[in-house]
């Protein structure tokens, strides 16, 4: 056979690997304010372009511009900044605690703080998130007690999950935060099922599913889109595209499709792509989606374009697979810096107030940490009890488990 007839396997590779100088100047990023804002009840086929663009509100000068601007008042904006700063500080302390051996594992949000903190503000009490391990902002944006999160991270005697779960795998029904699973993608279809239940009961609550760029490849992503599309479930299908899935760049999951948001098109699901490092844009788009879902107009998919600036988890070292400076070169900037610039441009914030806020937040986090550590840390011993290991397998403990507990002598 002739050479030109021979087939070849195409294996996508990221543009930059360790040693390369990252340069994203060829990435096409629409100007802030340039993407239109459709009516809430727009037919999905009329906004296919929104899956190939990026909705942005904050421009380089820190101004909020365009049709998606103007959703948040001063207090809300300052609160948003504080939530992001809290999340970052919380992460930093917990990363350090892990390195100090106070727990086994941690996962941070560095660079992605806007996504979950801004999103949460469009939900109301009773709505339910089905998060991954990288949306702790959903809790912090509700002023959820940090000490409870830390207790879980430390698996200490006050850990609400009794030491059973890996750190950061929170569960908080009261705060609309579904139990995090270690298995990727499973929660997405559960979110759809929850939303279907709300519709079955003629309720008003909506659900939000969360998934990472890499995990969109999982099969349950498909189940979710099929079910959401068929039953027009009141669910927001969030895809957090932070460019990386451990060591694997987004191109392996995305393949030949232009964007992850475009995945919704095959299902007639309106899909919007948003600057995930722009708190205002995230909020505005999420609000649009929530309103659509609440008006029984069915699911909306949102792709958040962001960047995982840190390692995948405390077990990961990204220097092994991407340039150290890639995160700095990332063109959408840092969500906290951008918000800060906006508040200053808006005249409601100063460098000094920012420093002060940093100190306050640091204090709050430290206070919480101190309290949490007073209840113990992973290896400080004794808690939670081994007895607890046998509880909650079933509602009532069956005889064979009672016998095993006895055998364990606890």
């Amino acid at each position, binding site marked *: 056979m002739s050479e030109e007839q021979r087939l070849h396997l195409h294996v996508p590779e990221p543009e930059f690997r360790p040693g390369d100088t990252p340069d994203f100047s060829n990435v096409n990023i629409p100007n802030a304010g340039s993407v239109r804002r459709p009516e809430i009840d727009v037919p999905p086929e009329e906004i296919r372009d929104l899956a190939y663009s990026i909705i942005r509100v904050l421009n380089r000068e820190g101004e909020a511009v365009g049709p998606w601007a103007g959703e948040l008042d001063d207090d809300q904006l300052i609160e948003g900044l504080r939530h992001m700063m809290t999340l970052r500080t919380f992460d930093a302390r917990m990363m350090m605690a892990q390195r100090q051996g106070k727990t086994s594992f941690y996962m941070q949000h560095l660079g992605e703080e806007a996504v979950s903190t801004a999103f949460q503000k469009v939900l109301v009490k009773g709505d339910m998130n089905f998060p991954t391990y990288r949306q702790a902002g959903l809790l912090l944006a509700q002023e959820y007690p940090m000490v409870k999160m830390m207790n879980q991270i430390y698996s200490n005697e006050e850990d*609400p999950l009794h030491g*059973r779960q890996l750190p950061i795998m929170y*569960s908080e029904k009261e705060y609309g935060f579904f139990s995090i699973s270690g298995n990727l993608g499973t929660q997405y279809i*559960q979110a759809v099922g929850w939303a*279907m239940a709300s519709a079955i009961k003629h309720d008003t609550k909506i659900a939000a599913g969360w998934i990472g760029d890499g995990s969109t490849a999982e099969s349950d992503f498909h189940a979710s889109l099929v079910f959401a599309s068929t039953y027009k479930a009141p669910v927001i299908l969030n895809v957090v595209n932070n460019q990386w899935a451990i060591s694997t760049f987004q191109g392996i999951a995305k393949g030949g499709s232009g964007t992850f948001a475009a995945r919704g098109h095959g299902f007639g699901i309106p899909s919007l792509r948003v600057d995930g490092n722009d708190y205002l844009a995230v909020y505005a788009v999420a609000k649009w989606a929530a309103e659509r879902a609440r008006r029984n107009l069915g699911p909306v998919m949102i792709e958040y374009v962001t960047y995982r600036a840190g390692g995948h988890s405390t077990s990961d070292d990204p220097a092994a697979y991407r340039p150290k400076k890639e995160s700095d070169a990332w063109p959408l900037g840092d969500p906290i810096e951008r918000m800060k610039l906006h508040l200053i441009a808006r005249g409601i914030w100063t460098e000094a107030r920012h420093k002060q806020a940093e100190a306050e937040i640091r204090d709050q986090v430290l206070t919480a940490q101190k309290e949490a550590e007073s209840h113990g840390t992973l290896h400080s011993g004794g808690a939670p009890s081994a007895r607890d290991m046998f509880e909650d397998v079933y509602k009532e403990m069956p005889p064979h488990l009672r016998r095993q507990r006895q055998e364990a002598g606890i």
Partner: protein
Amino acid sequence: MSRMTMIQAIRDAMDVKMGQDEDVVVFGEDVGYFGGVFRCTQGLQEKYGRNRCFDTPINESGIVGAAIGMAAYGLRPCVEIQFADYVYPAYDQIVSEAARLRYRSAGDFTAPITIRMPTGGGIFGGQTHSQSPEAVFTQVSGLKVVVPSNPIDAKGLLIASIEDDDPVIFLEPKRLYNGPFDGHHEQPVTPWSKHELGEVPDGHYSIPLGKAKVTREGSAVTVLAYGTMVYVAEAAARETGIDAEIIDLRTLLPLDEETIIASVKKTGRCVVVHEATLTSGFGGELLSRVQETCFYHLEAPIIRVAGWDTPYPHAQEWDYFPGPARVGRALVKVMEA
């Protein structure tokens, strides 16, 4: 009291629960308008509306995953997997999610769902309409696993399963849908309408999960069986004349050890029977438990009779199926040992 097939009894259980509890919803492939390929949900959509009984896309993981989400909301879904052979795409949602949700969230969320599926062979269904995958569920902490063998039990156990606050795998031996098949495939089966176990109480009643039933008292040997094998064991006892005590386990997880142990201590011998593949089948667990608890009462090795370690063949169905002759040989052997 009404005369019912097992199909009707199963449908009646769902009907009773849907009538009593608005949170009970029923869905799966072809279960809506059509009422299921075995007609177990016939009429439910008409009676309760599309909102509570509906067809789903063909995605087993989606069916179970959506059910888990609904359960987290507060519903009590009872879903159908068209054949047990098609449950594997849902295995992750069952094992990693439904079974562990209560545990991992310390009771914050729970998954009170029932997953019904027809199981077992005997209908010339070949390898994808004949499997008995109970053992891949009994290994999963957090699940309950139920296998009814007659209409009365099917209704009572299904009601108990739907009411149970933990996820239940409900395996329906399809060869029993219409009558108590004992493995004599060359003979016609007595329909349930002519059988006392087809006389199903009306309205609500439940049979507790985790309780076995002695279906035949005997003193010579204990036979542990469930589903179709209960009747095969009865036929084997009848035909060999061996005074076997037959226990219909009804629930495999949690297991009614008490009833089992009492019987084996009495008879001193034990035969374990199932249709599933032998190796790592549930019989291994049964044999182990008996050995661990009754060792000093055993007068002979416990024998397992099970499907061969091959996929379920089509034409060789009756060579594969552990029928009364094979079970009978085991009874004779255990008595002679």
